């Protein structure tokens, strides 16, 4: 089957700023794909290109097999979008905005609309002007998820939701994913990405710096290890993948690339180890390394 989203070498400049600089993004049909990157990395810009709202300067972009610029209307029947900044019409009620957006997309499921409205505890009779940021986001979420479409493009959809609503959101994403829909989820919330996404792409400065399954990415992170043995521990500094080693006599602490962990453990087995503690790799740590400005791209993607 084709990928739901295929982006290769995407470039988009605004005047002299190159917001996207050769970005790649591949989202397989049916997966929930996390789309991560620091502020200003180009997530929203990418999404707007995917929606045909911005015209790519160069690169290949395919959405559900079509060209998002030329085939926008046909494609938009098959996808739903939740913008990062939900701006609604102040005089319309939330219910009207939901019906309107759903209908313009090609219709929405009445029962599903009702169910979601209850799940997200949204009062549809209020004017959009009076909604809080979180409630505006709920309007966009209900309008999107009440449509029976193949692809959901969500740009930081939960940045204003409380924890209860975050749980409702995760449940809803699992439901649509369960029936085979594809989801592109841009987010700054690691726990959300870890809970929902099978694969993620991390971008920085308009370029993809990392892409793969969560397991693969965990592999790229380092485990923090501390050991204490009956005899002085030697030879660690010669092992591949060991970083930030602090060895003092019978104790040692260091970080090790997850891929090299087996070799390190074999080496340690030769010593009489009393205590061994390790902290498993977290996505957060990986993200931090990618997000931090000090780390050059080449080192990070090693």
């Amino acid at each position, binding site marked *: 089957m084709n990928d739901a989203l295929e982006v290769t070498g995407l470039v988009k400049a605004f005047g002299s700023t190159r917001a996207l600089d050769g970005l790649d993004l591949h989202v397989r049909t049916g997966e929930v794909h996390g789309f991560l990157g620091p502020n200003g990395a180009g997530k929203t810009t990418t999404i707007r290109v995917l929606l045909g*709202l911005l015209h790519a300067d160069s690169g290949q972009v395919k959405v559900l097999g079509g060209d998002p610029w030329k085939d926008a209307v*046909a494609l*938009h029947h098959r996808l739903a*979008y939740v913008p990062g900044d*939900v*701006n609604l019409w102040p005089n319309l009620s939330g*219910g*009207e905005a939901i019906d309107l957006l759903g209908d313009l997309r*090609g219709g929405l499921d009445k029962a599903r609309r009702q169910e979601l409205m209850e799940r997200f505890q949204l009062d549809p*009779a209020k004017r959009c002007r009076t909604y809080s940021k979180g409630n505006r986001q709920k309007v966009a979420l209900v309008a999107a998820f009440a449509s029976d479409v193949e692809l959901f493009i969500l740009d930081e959809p939960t940045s204003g939701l409380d924890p209860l609503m975050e749980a409702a959101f995760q449940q809803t994403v699992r439901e649509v994913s369960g029936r085979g829909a594809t989801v592109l989820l841009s987010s700054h919330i690691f726990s959300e990405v870890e809970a929902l996404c099978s694969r993620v792409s991390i971008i920085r400065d308009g370029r993809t710096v990392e892409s793969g399954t969560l397991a693969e990415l965990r592999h790229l992170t380092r485990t923090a290890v501390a050991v204490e043995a009956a005899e002085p521990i030697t030879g660690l500094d010669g092992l591949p993948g060991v970083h930030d080693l602090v060895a003092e006599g019978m104790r040692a602490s260091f970080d090790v690339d997850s891929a090299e962990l087996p070799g390190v453990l074999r080496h340690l087995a030769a010593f009489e180890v009393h205590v061994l503690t390790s902290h498993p790799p977290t996505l957060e740590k990986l993200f931090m390394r990618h997000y931090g400005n000090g780390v050059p791209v080449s080192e990070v993607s090693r």
Partner: protein
Amino acid sequence: MSAYAGTGRLIRLAARRDRIQLPIWILASAAVMGAGVAAVADEFPTEAGRVSALQAAGGSPAVLLMRGTPVGTDLGALVNFRNFSSMLVVVGLMSTFAMVRHTRQNEETGRAELIGSGVVGRHAALTAALTVTIAANLLLGALVTATLLGSGLAVDGSLAFGAACAVTGMAFTGIAAIAAQLFQGARATNAFAATAVGVAFMVRGVGDALGERAADGIQVNSAWLSWLSPLGWGAQVRPYGDERWWVLALPVALLVVCVGAAFALVDRRDLGAGLLPDRPGPAIASRSLLSPLGLAWRLNRGATYGWVIGSAVSGLAIGSLGAAVNDAMAGNEGASELLGQLAGTGGPDLVDVFFAAMMNIFGVLAASFAVQILLRLRAEESGGQAEAVLATAVGRAKWLASHLTCAVGGAAAMLVLTGAGAGLADAAAGGDTGVVTLAGAGLAQLPAALAMAGFVVLVFGGLPRLSVTLAWAGLALAITFGLLGDVIGLPQSVRDLSPFSHVPAIPAVAATAGPIVGLLAVAAVLTAAGAVLFRRRDLAL
């Protein structure tokens, strides 16, 4: 924290935001006055010429309605007659728009909330807006006075002229300050405030049209109705006539009362809300909303009703004057010349010339309406709502067309109803111009409005970030070239650039297809070009 804390900072911010817009209003006003004096001096160099022109004008209610009452026969008095009433409208509009910009619009875009969370008192935003707007009025008055003095006009009259401009602006500053507290949303507030200027103009105009001629056969004493209008007060200062300085106190008093009321209202309402609380809306959308056109109509219907009703009522008022024009003008030759100048044509039947001139004005109103409605496109784009709509299965062309339909349909309804209203009122007053004729005369203005609409679509498609400024500037130039071109002495080639110069003066002359077809073609080409540009460009968020 004092209620006024942070006012100074806000004043600097407001002045910075307005560092281009307000100076343009002010300098343009002074420039128009300079050109106006030169044009009058050129056209009416002799006392005798001025006397005969004014004698004619004093007998024509239509001229009095548009231009106010003559106050004397010297050069300054004629400048007053030709330019004063439109200058007062200009300061009125400048002041209302500036007030809305710095109060309601700030709140709507969330700027005020940001500002309010800093060290800024409750009253600071309104105080800052008032300060900047009043300062702009004073500056405008001073500059206009200086220009008039520089053109060699009398000191007393020039001072009174500038002062009357300044205080009239202040009166509308006060009115806008209250409107900003009462209405939800900058657009509604702007519409209300602009309507207030329009109503004040009509009230002043009707009062002057019904005025009584003084013994000298030149001066006209306005009827009491004029005294109900802030624009009337400005006129009653009578610069270059027998200056009545005490009248200057009336608009200032209105400002004081309005400002007091506005501050009282500020204390009663929450930021971002109007005084009237939000009622809940329907939980489910009605079918009529569920299409791009349904949405566009829903967004524009309030403004459309306002414009159409306001225009139709004005049409009734104009229509009722037709018979009076006829009576007053019987046997008066100079008058037809002046009216003809106003209508852009000479004609045998004065009532027809009068109606043609009025319909030209309504054509301008319809064009302004179309500009306002079409700029909603830009507001939706920069506000982010267009992003949501265009990410659904609505194509760009369809979205554009839905708003265009509202603009064209609304303008057409406005013109036909206004013409028909004028015809009905004319018939009721004993005239025989005819409902169908006047409705047709109204409709004949539509192509000019459509050409303006096409221009707006073009700038929206080509230069979205500048489109609001360019659209209003284009309209202002079209009005200046088309309607005031003669007043400020522009050459015909420049006046021909305005669509309003090409509309046939029905019913004074027979309808001709040429200019109408030409205007429609221009409108179609501009619109198509704008649509193509829009479909090819990025959404400018």
